[in-house]
């Protein structure tokens, strides 16, 4: 092999650069986002009603699918009432129903979305509730 010295050194430098983010972060633990679900609106609710439309575990993993289904149902089929698995009715609306309780977009939506580096475009159109100063 001609120029093997240059090539091998080059390769080593290349691999070192590419893998830099990995070994740089080895052993470091990024703080997981802690979502705030104690907005004043939620605190005001009676204890028994402090439940999201679906169980927490489902919402954590499936809220995007739920919101997608809600959107299709409302916009395309005109059906706006959602009966959840506990037989309770909800108005299917991100802006008027979800955010009515979760009035802290920054500490609820953004925190996790930023951590996961996802950028849903909900708020390009929908109006987020006014952030309250703690």
């Amino acid at each position, binding site marked *: 092999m001609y120029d093997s010295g240059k090539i091998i050194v080059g390769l080593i430098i290349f691999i070192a650069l590419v893998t830099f983010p990995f070994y740089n972060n080895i052993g470091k633990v990024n703080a997981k986002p802690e979502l705030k679900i104690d907005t004043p609106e939620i605190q005001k609710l009676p204890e028994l009603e402090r439940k999201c439309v679906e169980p927490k575990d489902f919402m954590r993993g499936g809220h995007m699918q*739920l919101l997608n289904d809600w959107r299709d149902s409302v916009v395309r089929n005109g059906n706006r009432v959602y*009966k959840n698995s506990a037989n309770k009715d909800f108005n299917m609306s991100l802006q008027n129903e979800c955010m009515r309780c979760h009035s802290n977009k920054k500490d609820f939506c953004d925190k996790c979305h930023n951590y996961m580096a996802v950028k849903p475009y909900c708020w*390009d159109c929908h109006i987020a509730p006014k952030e309250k100063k703690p």
Partner: protein
Amino acid sequence: MSMNRREFIKLAGISTLVGVGGVSVFNKLQQNALEASEFTAGTEALNAKQWAMVIDMSKFKTPEDYKRCMDACHSTHNVPDFSNPKDEIKWIWPETFEHAFPGQEHKYMNEETKEKSFLLLCNHCANPACVRVCPTKATFKRKDGVVMQDMHRCIGCRFCMAACPFGARSFNYRSSRGKDANGQPLIKEENTAYPTRMIGVVEKCTFCTERLAVGKLPKCVEVSDEFSKGALVFGDLADANSEVRKIINTKYTIRRKPELGTEPSVFYVIGGNDYAIVPELL
């Protein structure tokens, strides 16, 4: 590897079974994700086969009357005011007879009709041209006849604007969030219960589907009742006993550009009942 016919057929049969079985198992699992949830229209929702509107022009007396309807609509739906006709977004707007009903005007027409403003909005056609051309089905016809716009799907191609013969559609050339040159917000009073639109989508009147869903009439109709009862009447065109049908049955109404075959659902009563009487004919 060689394989005789018998082995091949066996293998094909087994893989078909696994494939079909796998899909159905997968579907079953997906269904179980959310049990017993369902979508309904709600008990208060107003229903119809084809929503329609009758606009009685004789009941609009002053420019103030039009303005009230327009302002109410535009503030309810967060329609921005760009104060520039090129960027204008309009859901409901005034127009002269000549422009609203082209071809119907003539030089002997009475001054009042000639100069009067007509209130125009999306016609929610029974056979809408905009829906036919939309490449993403972002605009579509609902079961109740409303020509609806799904902003999530709109790619901003503006085919619908080219197709609509009524100029009912507006394109968001600019973002409606923010302020104009004078530092005034583009949306004067934000209605936090209704979304705004992002740059690059087409919008228009929706016959207030969000209000129909909770048993309310469209905003312009509600407001018009305050200054003149019956100026705007809303109802089901397919129901022979509806108020709109009663008016259409008893009065002469015209529609915009009916010759194009889109079957508009907005009807206009032009002259009221004060026709000029020619004595010899009595």
